């Protein structure tokens, strides 16, 4: 194929409720378009693994340093809520996988339904997380309104860690556990919110009939992003809620 002729390749729609997909002009074939995007997205997901990897390295380092702090800190978290959220995310990963499958098989209504259920899972997860955070904030274990405050040089206190009930009084550097807990779950939660936004974006495209057996690339990529969110939580749950 000559690169001089710029007629675009069009993937036909499999039915009247769908739209044809025009391959971007800088790609010769739909296969090339799909593989290029997919390779780029896997590279992005690799950088995500390394982003969280740095946080996990910090966790393991300080867990070695102050093991009793992490055990006592972990007991302040409710493993039942963490376990419930684990199940919610696993279920939402299943609905997302089923959604991608619906796109691959040109089932528009099923794609919309499974995407909607996945967003519902994301919402339930964040609501549970909100109440967990609120309880921690109320007990002075991580005061969100003070989260950017450093040491008060006059008193030597951390404004975001007041530990009202003194639950961490018996272990050294009790604030370390909660700093790591909030950083890791916070960045994870940000991914949940971004992922839910992307899935809603997919739903708009799906409603217009953009995704079908001939073209489901964006659904596939957003699905991978959502599974990564699940993947990270699979490790966060035992490390934070059931501190070994």
């Amino acid at each position, binding site marked *: 194929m000559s690169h001089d002729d710029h007629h675009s390749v069009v993937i036909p729609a499999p039915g009247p409720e769908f739209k044809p997909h025009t391959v971007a002009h800088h790609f010769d*074939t739909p296969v090339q378009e*799909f593989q290029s995007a997919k390779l780029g997205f896997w590279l992005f997901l690799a950088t995500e693994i390394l982003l969280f990897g740095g946080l996990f390295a910090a966790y393991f380092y300080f867990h070695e340093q102050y093991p009793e702090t992490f055990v006592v800190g972990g007991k302040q978290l409710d493993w039942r809520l963490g376990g419930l959220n684990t199940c919610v995310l696993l279920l939402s990963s299943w609905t997302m996988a089923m959604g991608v499958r619906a796109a691959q098989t040109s089932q528009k209504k099923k794609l919309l339904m499974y995407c909607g259920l996945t967003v519902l899972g994301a919402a339930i997860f964040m609501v549970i997380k909100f109440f967990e955070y609120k309880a921690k904030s109320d007990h002075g274990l991580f005061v969100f309104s003070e989260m950017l405050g450093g040491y008060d040089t006059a008193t030597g206190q*951390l404004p975001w860690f007041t*530990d009202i009930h003194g639950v961490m*009084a018996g272990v050294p550097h009790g604030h370390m556990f909660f700093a790591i807990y909030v950083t890791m779950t916070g960045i994870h939660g940000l991914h949940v919110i971004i992922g839910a936004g992307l899935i809603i974006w997919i739903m708009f495209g799906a409603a217009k009939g953009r995704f079908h057996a001939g073209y489901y690339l964006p659904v596939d990529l957003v699905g991978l992003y959502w599974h990564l969110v699940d993947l990270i939580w699979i490790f966060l*749950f035992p490390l934070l809620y059931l501190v070994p």
Partner: protein
Amino acid sequence: MSDAHDSHGDFGDLQMGTHHVSSALQFTSVLIALLFLTIITVAVAQFDFGGANMLIAMGIASVKAALVILFFMHVKYDTAINKIMFLSSFLFLSLLFIFTLADRATRQMDHRAHTIKTPVASEWVHPNTLNSDH
């Protein structure tokens, strides 16, 4: 074009190439396995196996992660280059962990850190003042 071997179905050469469609049964089986392993994770955490608790917890989490990666993320059916791209991140991750934990294991620790009585806020000392009285 040499993409013909990637093509299936009604779309012929216009098909996108990698589109293994997993069965719903496979996804549901993976979900049940993941939920079951979550129960196991909580169950084993109730027992004290000493240092083995961390290894057991991370072992179960790794099995769960493998299920998500292979089946939900379709890596089992993906192209070799995509497999290498994603799985290589775990290679670099292991380098990060190995050198970080090797540093921790071989460092002469300041044992005073473990004997500081309490982190109760009112008794904290600002880190900058620790070395200031020569």
